[in-house]
Every structure is written in structure tokens, then in C-alpha cells.
């Protein structure tokens, strides 16, 4: 896998995490003061960037090498949610996230 492809993967995963955090912020804001459409629009734009980058990477890299990387996205989302939204998990939650990531990698690698 070339350096460019790795960079695209990293940026696309960042876009995925950012997009989902914007979605969550939009839905929280909806309950607070109803000004959520802007955040939702940023979320949709960010997810579009993720989708296009991911398609671009798929174009360059064999799918079998790429798909296991998709397995780390639940972990990245949980870390992003912990840092930017202050979400917390108990040990069962962390174990569940770990197993889910491992399972997604297995399914994707096969």
C-alpha cells in the first residue's frame, strides 16, 4: 500500500468520525435551541468527503487489504465521542467494542 493510499485512509477515517460527531451534536442541539440544520449540513458534507475518499482508496488498493481497516472505525468513533462529546463506557462496553472490531475485521478479511 502506497504512502498516498495510507494518507487517504487516515483522512477518510477522520472524516467519518468527524461527520458522526457532527450528527450527534446536531441532534443534541435540536433538543437545546432547535438550531441544528447547520450542524447536520456540516455532518452530511463531511460524510460525503468520507464516502468519496473511501471510494478513491478502493480504486487504488485491493479490497481485501483495505476492508480490515474498516474494523477499527467503531474504536475510533468511541475515542472521538469520549474526547469531543464526553461519552464514557464501562468495561463491558469496551470489551464489546473490542469484539465488534475484531469481528468486523474477520468478516471483512474473508
Amino acid at each position, binding site marked *: 500500500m502506497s504512502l498516498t493510499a495510507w494518507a487517504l485512509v487516515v483522512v477518510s477515517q477522520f472524516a467519518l468520525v468527524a461527520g458522526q460527531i457532527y*450528527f450527534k451534536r446536531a441532534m443534541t442541539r435540536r433538543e437545546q435551541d432547535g438550531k441544528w440544520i447547520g450542524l447536520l449540513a456540516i455532518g452530511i458534507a463531511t460524510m460525503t468527503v468520507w464516502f468519496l475518499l473511501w471510494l478513491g482508496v478502493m480504486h487504488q488498493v485491493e479490497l481485501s487489504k483495505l476492508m480490515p481497516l474498516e474494523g477499527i472505525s467503531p474504536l475510533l468513533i468511541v475515542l472521538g465521542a*469520549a474526547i469531543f462529546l464526553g461519552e464514557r*463506557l464501562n468495561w*463491558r462496553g469496551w470489551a464489546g467494542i473490542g*469484539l*465488534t472490531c475484531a469481528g468486523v475485521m*474477520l468478516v471483512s478479511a474473508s
Partner: protein
Amino acid sequence: MHDQLPAAIPPKPAPGLFWNPYLQIFLTVLLTAAAQILLKAGADFSARNDSVWSWIGLAELGSVWTWLGIMALVASFGGWLYALRFLPLGLAFALSNGVHIFVPLGSWFFLHEQISFLRGSGILVIIAGILLLAQSVVKVEEKI
């Protein structure tokens, strides 16, 4: 920026099973899996088509399957946003990985694709992970 806003009080979902956020995540997962399979069916339809449209990827739009797939994707996005009103993002996203269970199962059932041993064990590991996550939710809600 957040300090100036009223504190985020977790909202209560509307009564009724359909408005349960966990059921909405499940429906989102089912709709996303259905969308993948419908889009694949639409792509297979256009693969038999030799027109100019098929070269630029627009022939898929001539298939009802593709349009059903797009509608399923839009509906699943609605369910996802609804669920995010009530659930933490990390938990909701992890549960949404159930799609990796239903896509292979649906491809096996509807498209007659094989499920390898590795893929089958991956599906079991995801189910175990989702069960643990579900248990963690029960523990958290007991405390509240």
C-alpha cells in the same frame, strides 16, 4: 459555545415500540443491509446492459432495484438520526455494525453467495460483541 446553551437533558422517546431508539438502530441496520443487496442487484441488472449509459455507471438508475436501494438508504439515515437523539454516539455506532452480520446472511439467502468459515466466525464474534454492549447498556440504565 456549549455553556451558553441550556443543559442537554436526555429526551424521552415517544411511547410505543416503534419509537424505541434500539429498535430504530435495528431497522437502520436492516435497511442498510437491504440497500447493499438491492444496489448489488441493480448493478447486476446493468451488467447485462451494453449501452453507453452502463459505461458511466448510470445504467443502474434504469433498474427498480437501484431506486429501492436508494430509498432504503434514505430511510436508514432517518432512523439513524432519530436514534442519535437518545443514544450515545459510540454505542449507537457499535450497534450499527450489526450490518456486517446481515449483509453476508442476506447475500447468502437472496444472492446465493457462500459464507466461508472465516466469515462465519467473524459474524459470531460480532454477535458476542453486540451482546456485551447490550449488557453494558442494561448496567448503565440500572444505575440511573
